[in-house]
């Protein structure tokens, strides 16, 4: 910190702010242009979903939980279905599992392309924003022709899926992917070579491997810092054991590395979807699912576009879930923004924030962070210790 004459300001951002697509409140203390501390307050989109799920039956809760987040809706409904099916001792038929996996990867494509656009917009590169959103419509078309809806596909039912993949759809998926791959090569070129873009991304928001581990980062963020962590490989679910993906990592840990990791992941996704479409197992789409689920508890995890998504589901043998606990990846990545923002220029903050691909609607649930036994480096912000009336 500099001399005593420099005034310090607190810059509040949000909950309604042009740079934020969703409501959250940030406070950055600045010394001149440099950020000296940051805090965040969530909760504007807290709707009480976990409690809401307890008041619905097993099938109704599926549609509620799908709407935790509109961007990774299929990830939420899949992780819930997998958990509840395990509790009930039911396994979805292989064809249903393959279709679920295809949709998960399509969703990853739509989510990452959405992110490329939004992050490019924050960097002041609106051309890339428009390009990537235009190309994203290809995958939206595929999703729509497949399930009838562009967002919130509700393709899952407990015990399987609703929609079959016919030859016509398979063709449209394959030709759509051809186009997307061509475009992805172009994006790769832009994020690696465009000088003005590199000025906004290279060396910004850098997180070393150690910091990433300490701050509990997850998903593409931690993979861009050189940690190979991906539930699709570490704890395969659905058909990921038979149709594996390669974990993409980078070592730089800055924003540019995150761009590269996410775009390369898309190549993996397209490869995976191709393999699945070409070797789609035959058989039923769904099996019968009981109305009541026998008592027990389970943990269900999958790799959502933003990182590991974790559900804890408990049944007391009734028609409703007894408890559903959701832990979403964005929340784990926020610590890296709060800590990483310090020392940066205020103008870099929107970029650093969008670097983790934040999603507030899935963030807004309670976390209780225990302070004991932790060193102060990642001191939890005040909002982390809110009490939840539903717990």
């Amino acid at each position, binding site marked *: 910190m500099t001399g005593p004459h420099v005034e310090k300001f607190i810059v509040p951002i949000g909950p309604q702010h042009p740079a934020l697509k969703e409501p959250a409140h940030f406070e950055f203390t600045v010394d001149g242009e440099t950020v000296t501390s940051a805090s965040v307050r969530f909760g504007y*989109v807290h709707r009480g979903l976990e409690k809401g799920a307890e008041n619905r039956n097993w099938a109704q809760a599926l549609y509620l939980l799908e709407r*935790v987040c509109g961007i990774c809706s299929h990830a939420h409904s899949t992780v819930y279905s997998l958990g509840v099916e395990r509790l009930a001792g039911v396994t979805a038929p292989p064809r249903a599992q393959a279709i679920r996996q295809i949709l998960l990867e399509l969703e990853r494509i739509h989510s990452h392309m959405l992110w490329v656009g939004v992050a490019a917009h924050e960097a002041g590169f609106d051309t890339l924003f428009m390009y990537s959103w*235009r190309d994203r419509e290809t995958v939206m078309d595929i999703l729509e022709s497949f399930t009838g809806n*562009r967002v919130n596909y509700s393709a899952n039912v407990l015990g399987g899926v609703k929609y079959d993949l016919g030859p016509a759809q398979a063709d449209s998926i394959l030709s759509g992917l051809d186009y997307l791959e061509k475009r992805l090569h172009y994006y790769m070129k832009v994020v690696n070579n465009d000088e003005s873009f590199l000025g906004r991304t290279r060396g910004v928001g850098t997180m070393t491997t150690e910091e990433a581990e300490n701050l509990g980062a997850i998903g593409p963020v931690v993979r861009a810092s050189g940690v190979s962590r991906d539930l699709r490989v570490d704890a395969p679910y659905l058909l990921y054991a038979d149709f594996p993906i390669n974990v993409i990592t980078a070592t730089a840990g800055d924003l540019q590395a995150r761009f590269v990791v996410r775009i390369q992941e898309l190549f993996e996704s397209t490869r995976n979807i191709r393999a699945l479409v070409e070797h789609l197992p035959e058989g039923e789409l769904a099996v019968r699912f009981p109305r009541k689920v026998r008592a027990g508890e389970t943990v269900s995890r999958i790799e959502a576009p933003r990182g590991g998504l974790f559900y804890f589901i408990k049944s007391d043998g009734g028609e409703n879930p007894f408890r559903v606990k959701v832990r979403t990846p964005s929340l784990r990545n926020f610590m890296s923004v709060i800590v990483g923002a310090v020392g940066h220029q205020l103008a870099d903050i929107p970029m650093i924030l969008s670097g983790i691909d934040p999603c507030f609607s899935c963030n807004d649930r309670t976390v209780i962070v225990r302070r004991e036994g932790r060193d102060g480096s990642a001191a939890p912000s005040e909002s982390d210790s809110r009490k939840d009336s539903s717990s």
Partner: protein
Amino acid sequence: MSDVPAGLPKAWTKMLEGLKNWSRIYSPWAIHFNSGSCNGCDIEILATLTPRYDVERFGIKLQGSPRHADVLICTGPVTLQARDRLKRVYDQMPDPKFVIAVGSCATSGGVFQGCYNVVGGIDQVIPVNAFIPGCPPRPEAIIDGVVKLLGSLQQKKVAEKTG
């Protein structure tokens, strides 16, 4: 419409009013507020700005500040936390202002009805001019809703002229 200075000749006032109405109908500036949505509606609103749909060709522009906006586009059910903010954003907008509720949630609370932190639809808190149902509505539906709202303003204008 009190922001035309008082004391002007009547013909001038009328002309200024006409000018304001004309610009409002042909180029409404909108602001987007998310009061608890799942994000689905928000990405579809963003999609309306991008090349395939491109609402800017109709003169519709998404604005950052409520003080510059004519139309408030709301998504999501209203949560207890966001309720006061929503009211505040609405109060900050200059008159006359219009509210569009996008999505089933904004219309009625949708799938989140009965959750303890949800008040209900947007119309529980502020008056709404147009509802666009769907979960989420397609970008075409959102554009259609905005155009219908503008059309109703046009009719009002015609009615004012003839009446």
